[in-house]
């Protein structure tokens, strides 16, 4: 990859209803014309794998589903934009089996890897991530359209 490169990373599970939204949006972006230096990848796993995926890029834009606790009061389809400093409580960024994205980034820095200086997450509040299926709920499907545009804007596409 080149210096100044950007990774668009779609995360999720393609057979768990709304959890597939990040993969869907990223998959669509992968088929479109994007500015030079932008690469799109899809990942169904987190943890240490995140470190391996983002290593070497200067900027990373993650698209993923979010399942907030009830007290957060978020509605399905709500889009939340996070930056690296905000990483707490994401749906998939915190792999309890392994490590979360904050730890992955810190570990990469400790090990002297070329880690991204900028990490942005577009998180979409999910309605259902507990039923097997390949369809998005209507509010999340609508949000997918908006996130697609937001990521394109972020990329200057």
């Amino acid at each position, binding site marked *: 990859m080149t210096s100044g490169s950007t990774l668009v990373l779609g995360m999720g599970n393609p057979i768990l209803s709304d959890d597939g939204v990040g993969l869907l949006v990223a998959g669509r972006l992968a088929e479109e014309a994007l500015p030079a230096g932008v690469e799109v990848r899809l990942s169904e796993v987190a943890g240490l794998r995140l470190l391996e995926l983002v290593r070497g890029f200067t900027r990373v834009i993650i698209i993923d589903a979010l399942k907030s606790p009830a007290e957060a009061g978020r509605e399905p389809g709500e889009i939340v934009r996070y930056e690296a400093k905000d990483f707490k409580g994401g749906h998939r960024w915190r792999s309890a089996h392994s490590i979360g994205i904050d730890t992955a980034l810190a570990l990469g820095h400790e090990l002297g890897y070329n880690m991204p200086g900028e990490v942005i997450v577009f998180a979409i509040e999910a309605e259902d991530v*507990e039923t*097997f299926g390949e369809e998005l709920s209507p509010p999340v499907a609508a949000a997918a359209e908006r996130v697609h545009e937001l990521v394109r804007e972020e990329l200057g596409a």
Partner: protein
Amino acid sequence: MKKVSVDPITRLEGHGKIEIFVDDDNVVQNVYFQIPELRGFERFCVGRPVEELARITPRICGVCPEAHHMAATKAIDAVFGVKPARTGVMLRELLYNAFFVTDHTTHFYILAGPDFIMGPESDPATRNILGVIHKVGLETGGAVINLRAEAAELISMIGGKQIHPVCGLPGGVSQAITAEQRDRMVQITAAQVEFAKFSLQLFDDVVLANNDYVELIKSDAFTHATYNMGMVDENNKVNFYDGQIRVTGQDGSELEKFEGRDYLAHIAEHVEPYSYLTYPYLKSVGWKGFVDGPDSGVYKASPLSRLNAADGMATPLAQQEYERFFSTLGGKPVNATLATHWARLVELLYAAERSHELATDPDIIDPDVRTIPTGIVGEGVGVVEAPRGTLYHHYKTDDQGMVTNVNLIVGTTNNNAAISMSLKKAAEGILTGGSEIREGNLNMIEMAFRAYDPCFGCATHTLPGDMPLEVTIKSETTREVVATVKRNM
């Protein structure tokens, strides 16, 4: 009366809840271990061509997709009644052992390492991989990352993809490997053997050289004399990819040995109203509740139980470690839950050695990697040892090979009763009456199940992301939370 929350329980896959009820003197009364229900897996699968299950089932788990791919592929072989080509089997086994190397390494350094290298009651802010690499050296952290990258390279050469292999087809695999790829695999697997040896040495230096840790491992709070289950080859040596299922008892003798396809004759599932996850037990012994001993059908299916259920390891260096393991811990069987971490490293060495054996076998580049099926049986069971225990996939189809029924028993489910018992016993041993409930105490209770490396994602037939488990300690009488311990991730 008390309830203590640990939110989140660090370093555990899946979403679940542990509730520990104590009386006014902090004496443990009950421990409940719950996970949420995830819906519609069978409905999602029914009506699809059975070959698709080798690509669908890996997606129910973000941790061990390779295990599901292998169990599914073997079940699909059986559905079509096809004996897979020899080199196809070798390539599957090579991929699978490389996956074990990755998974066991990750567990040791990321999950187990913090408890032992930093200390079970150390500051949670540093009781993680970052603390570990500061203590053991940055180069070890780099070596872990490098090993994972190389294993992923090997897996993608055979599997077609790094995370979710697509190579498994009824009768073999989709493509042969080239001599050039083989050469690279020989290089990678040789390095894996060295890394496994290094990891065992580290365990010696950090854990076995520390008498407090050895006492902790051997302590009664972390000990359960259940039956042990594991897959063995024709010589009763541990095998992850193929063989018969062997169950041994509290005196180390064989209780039963059976073909994976006969699992329903040997395993039944107990249900509790508070849990969607069933509690498998040995039919021949019966369900007697959450108790151990020869009269209780509770069994473990884990790295530790695999070593207990076998007569040894099929590779030379791992065999030496196997012998040292049992001689150090007082002979077979070892019932100390925390010894699972050591057992996992013995298996890591075996997986690396076995990968190297397969990569250096001249037949590994034979282009004949698949036997095309010509008929259909309509039912098949595929069994492998997943890192977390024996994994059963059972499919039924119509005469066109379209799925009509799916049943899975995953590694964590096998251990459900044992995990529940381990939690209760650890809680009883650590939260002794009248003592203050501290974060370090709760971490030591967590250690009881972290040893099993439970993964509730696929245990409920899905993965709802990587959400934390929650532990609460509640009053037995008022059901109120007494104290809360929060962790930073």
